[in-house]
Each structure stands twice: as structure tokens, then as C-alpha cells.
């Protein structure tokens, strides 16, 4: 039994597995299968100021070893999060990361300030949603704007701030350095990759939004590469995600430099994926004589 606990921004996680924003709601649906306390943490569904209805269906398309989604940040707004979802999560013995997604810099700052003094452990600022017209990837694909929104949220927030980066850029390290310079305490990556599928019988895109975000095992190598590049480029900790679906994927992502992990699309294939991955990480450590998971972080030996 290896030690799986990690410390990320001064917050102790009982294991490195956090469920990714958008893939797991607020955990309610999965509690009949296993207690949420078996997870390190939960990154909650991206929260906006007001209720957001999302994009028209179809919102889901299957791809080779993955999927596209164009949900478009459907959520009940910050008040519902604070009054209904957060009080429930507070009773679950799980670290709570609140993912926020404003459509303007001011909205992002306001969302962050609303979380001050609550039981939320950390903010994850979404500057990378590919499915919304305002905010989202429009913030995360320009280093200067990414820095500005990070600064505004950092100034408004008393909680640790993690910024979630978009992979749909030429240089992700440039964006990472900009958010680091503007007060981000950590970065998380990768959000989904912009993709498209066409139904050849109708010549229509499968998604009503035409394009959507690619996730699932297909994106793992891109995520590992980007986590490796970013962890070499910044001094702040990196939370790695993108295509993790088994214990060895998780170990690989940590070797690339991640000290915390998120699991998303794998849950759709296997509802037990987050807890299974924790068990498989433990088995891997035991088999390989690793006594403490922290020993493997960033230990890839590049050629």
C-alpha cells in the first residue's frame, strides 16, 4: 500500500485523482456506486453568473477512442452552486475545486469573489472552453488576455487559483508563462481539442454546433506532451488531464510533471473509472517498489 496522498498548493488530497469539470456534474449521480470520499477531489461543472442553457443538440459525437462534445457550459448559475450543490459536497469528505467560466473579465472576477469565504478549496478558472462564444477559449488562446483575466481573478479571490489552459494554441508554454506571471498559483491542462465530425450520408456535421471539444484516450499523448512542456516552462504546479483512463496513464501523466490529475471522459466508458484508477495506481506503485506517489512526479528521463 503506497502513500497516494499529494499536497497541491498547500491543500492535501488523499490521492491525486480529481474528477474533471463537466464530466461528473457535482458527483450526485455516482454516489450510489461508491462514496465520493474515495476520490481526491472534484472539479465541479463550470459555473457562470446566471443560469446557462447550453447549445442545441446533438451535443455528443463518438470518435475513434474518444468523443466530441458541444454541451456549451449548461449549468444552474453561481447561486444554485452556492446554495444547493456546495452544501451537499461539503458533507462528502472530498476536496472541492470550483470551476468558473465568466464571459467577461469582470464576470470572472465576480465569480471568484463570490467563492471567498466558502468551503471551496480552490478555484479553477476556465479560459479554455471551446463551446462558448464569449469568454472561454477567447481568453485562453491569447497570452495577453489570458494574463489579464488571471490577474483580475487573482485580485478578487482569496482562494488558491488554478487556471485551466486550452490546447488549441501554437505555444501552450507562452500562455502558461503569462498566467504564472499574472498570479496563477497553478495551471491545469488540457481542456478539449477543437474537432469536427461529418455524417457523410447527410453531409451535416454530427454536432449541431458544427464543432466541439475532443476528449478521451485519443488525446492522451497530446496531453502528456503539453504537461511535460508546461511543467518545464513554469515553476507553479501542474494539474494534468486529457485522456487518462487507467492507472498507467495516470502514472505517465505524473512522470510528465503533473502533481495532481483529473479524469473526465473515461467516466462515460466506465462509471467506476476514477476509483479504479486510484486502485490501479496503488497496484503499480506496489509492483514497482514506489512507496510514495510523490516520488514519481516529473521523473521522466527525456532522451
Amino acid at each position, binding site marked *: 500500500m503506497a502513500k497516494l496522498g499529494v499536497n497541491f498548493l498547500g491543500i492535501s488530497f488523499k490521492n491525486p485523482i480529481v474528477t474533471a469539470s*463537466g464530466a461528473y456534474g457535482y458527483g450526485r449521480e455516482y454516489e450510489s456506486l461508491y462514496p465520493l470520499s474515495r476520490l481526491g477531489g472534484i472539479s465541479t461543472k463550470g459555473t457562470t453568473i446566471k443560469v446557462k442553457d447550453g447549445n442545441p*443538440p446533438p451535443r*455528443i459525437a463518438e470518435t475513434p477512442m474518444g468523443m466530441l462534445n458541444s454541451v456549451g457550459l449548461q449549468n444552474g448559475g453561481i447561486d444554485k452552486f452556492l446554495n444547493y450543490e456546495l452544501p451537499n459536497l461539503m458533507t462528502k469528505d472530498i476536496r472541492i475545486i470550483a470551476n468558473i467560466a465568466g464571459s467577461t473579465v469582470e464576470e470572472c472576477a465576480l465569480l471568484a469573489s463570490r467563492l471567498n469565504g466558502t468551503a471551496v478549496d480552490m478555484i479553477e478558472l476556465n479560459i479554455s472552453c471551446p463551446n462558448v462564444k464569449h469568454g472561454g477559449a477567447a481568453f485562453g488562446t491569447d497570452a495577453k488576455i489570458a494574463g489579464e483575466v488571471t490577474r483580475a481573478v487573482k485580485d478578487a479571490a482569496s482562494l488558491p487559483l488554478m487556471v485551466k489552459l486550452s490546447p488549441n494554441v501554437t505555444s501552450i508554454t507562452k500562455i502558461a508563462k503569462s498566467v504564472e506571471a499574472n498570479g496563477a498559483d497553478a495551471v491545469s491542462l488540457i481542456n478539449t481539442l477543437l474537432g469536427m465530425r461529418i455524417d457523410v450520408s447527410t453531409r451535416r456535421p*454530427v454536432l449541431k454546433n458544427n464543432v466541439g471539444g475532443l476528449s478521451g*484516450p485519443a488525446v492522451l499523448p497530446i496531453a502528456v506532451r503539453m504537461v511535460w512542456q508546461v511543467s518545464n516552462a513554469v515553476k507553479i504546479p501542474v494539474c494534468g488531464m486529457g485522456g487518462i483512463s487507467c492507472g498507467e496513464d495516470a502514472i505517465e501523466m505524473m512522470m510528465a510533471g503533473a502533481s495532481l490529475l483529473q479524469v473526465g471522459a473515461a*467516466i462515460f466508458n466506465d462509471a467506476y473509472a476514477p476509483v479504479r484508477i486510484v486502485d490501479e495506481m496503488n497496484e503499480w506503485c506496489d509492483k514497482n517498489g514506489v512507496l510514495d506517489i510523490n516520488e514519481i512526479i516529473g521523473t521522466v528521463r527525456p532522451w
Partner: protein
Amino acid sequence: MFQNKYEIIKKKMLSYDIVDFTVKSKEISNAAAAGQFVHISAPGFFLRRPISICEINKADGTMRIVFQIRGKGTDALSKLAEGEVLDILGPLGHGFTVDKSFNSVMLVGGGIGTPPMLELAKLYGDKARVITGFKTKELAILSGDFKYTGAQLFECTDDGSLGRKGFVTDELREQIKIKKPDMVFACGPLVMLRGVKQMCEANNVLCEISLEERMACGVGACLGCAVKLDKGEGEFYGHVCKDGPVFSAKEVVF
């Protein structure tokens, strides 16, 4: 809700592209209700396939699922043999209203929308009139099963090769005139559901319809399977997996 591997104990082809599995699944069968669905992993594919439950046998701890080969995923599922296992998440969603005070109900199934009506027909028995519709006789399924429930069965085909020549809505119109039912339940193509909904509203009959949509999680977490609803306070997106798959027809915005 359970997720496990369950054995296929019986496999039949109901037509050239419609597969009928009976699965040993004590825990799911025990918990399942008419109109709910299960989410099945297709070998070699990332997303599960949502398939409605056709029949539940709590005494035997089995359930029956009937699905059409629509693409590569369902094709892979169809190749599984008796004795092999299915990775199933379920039962999911909420099913049809079962009200003992109802004296007369109508069940309308179009094509591959027919299977979820069978368990409901078993529950309502001789209080149920069932209308099924298919393109042609070779594609008609479950005739014997429906007759066995005690329900009256009215079959329709587009070409008249079996039963009435015409659409299920033609038969429904006549049946409502003969005796107004307490509720109509329907599952099938969108164009059929729209017709059934309009006919029920015109005749002031309660109506529930079962919908499908491209789905990822199946449990209400990812919000992928959106459907436009209106409960009287404006339109919004609900979700087939959790708010459905069975909806009150008057709340669905087509």
C-alpha cells in the same frame, strides 16, 4: 444503479437487423421499471449505447433488450453470442406511468420504438390497446409477445403487407374515437411522436413519449443528451437520460 458484466443467456434475431438478447442481471432486473433503459458498452468503442429495456423478469432475474443494428457499435454488440457477457450500466432514467386506476391505455410503438412498450403491455394487460407500426411485414417484431400480454394488438405497415395499411396515427385516431383512453404512451420516430402528441392534445388525452438522443454518461452528469422542454415557464434544455427517457408529451418542444 449498477454497473457490471452480465451474461447473455439467450440470443435471437427478430429480423435481419434487430437483435434480441435475454441477459442474466438479477440486480438490474430487480430495480428496473417499464420504460427505463440500460447503457451498454460495445466492444471496441468508447461510448456506451443507450438501449431501452424490452422486458423485465424479476422472478428469473433476467431482462430482455431488443435493438437495431444502426452503426458499427450496435453491429459489434450484435456479434456477441450466448454465454458471452455485456458490460451494462443501469437501470437508468425514469419510465412510464403505471397507474392502477387507469381503465384504458393505448401503447403506440413505431419500428424499433416498439420494444419498450412490451413491459408496459404486460403491466396493463387487457386494459391496454397496442398499436405497432412497421415499414413492411418482414420488419414487424414482437407480435406474439404482445398478444401473450392480454392486450389487444393492432398492427400497421406502410405497404399493407401486415395489418392495416397506413401509419400508427391513423389507427390511433380511430381507437381514440372508439374509446377515449386514460393515457397514451408512445415510442418511435420523431415524426410519429409529433403526430401522436398533436392527436392527444386535440382530444385532450394525457400522453407520455419516450425519446432518444446522442448520449455520453447516461446518468445526468455530462448534460450531453439535451432535449428542449417547456413546463410552462419558458423553454429550456432537459436531458433524456435523467429527465427521461419518458417525458410528458406536452412538455416536449418539437
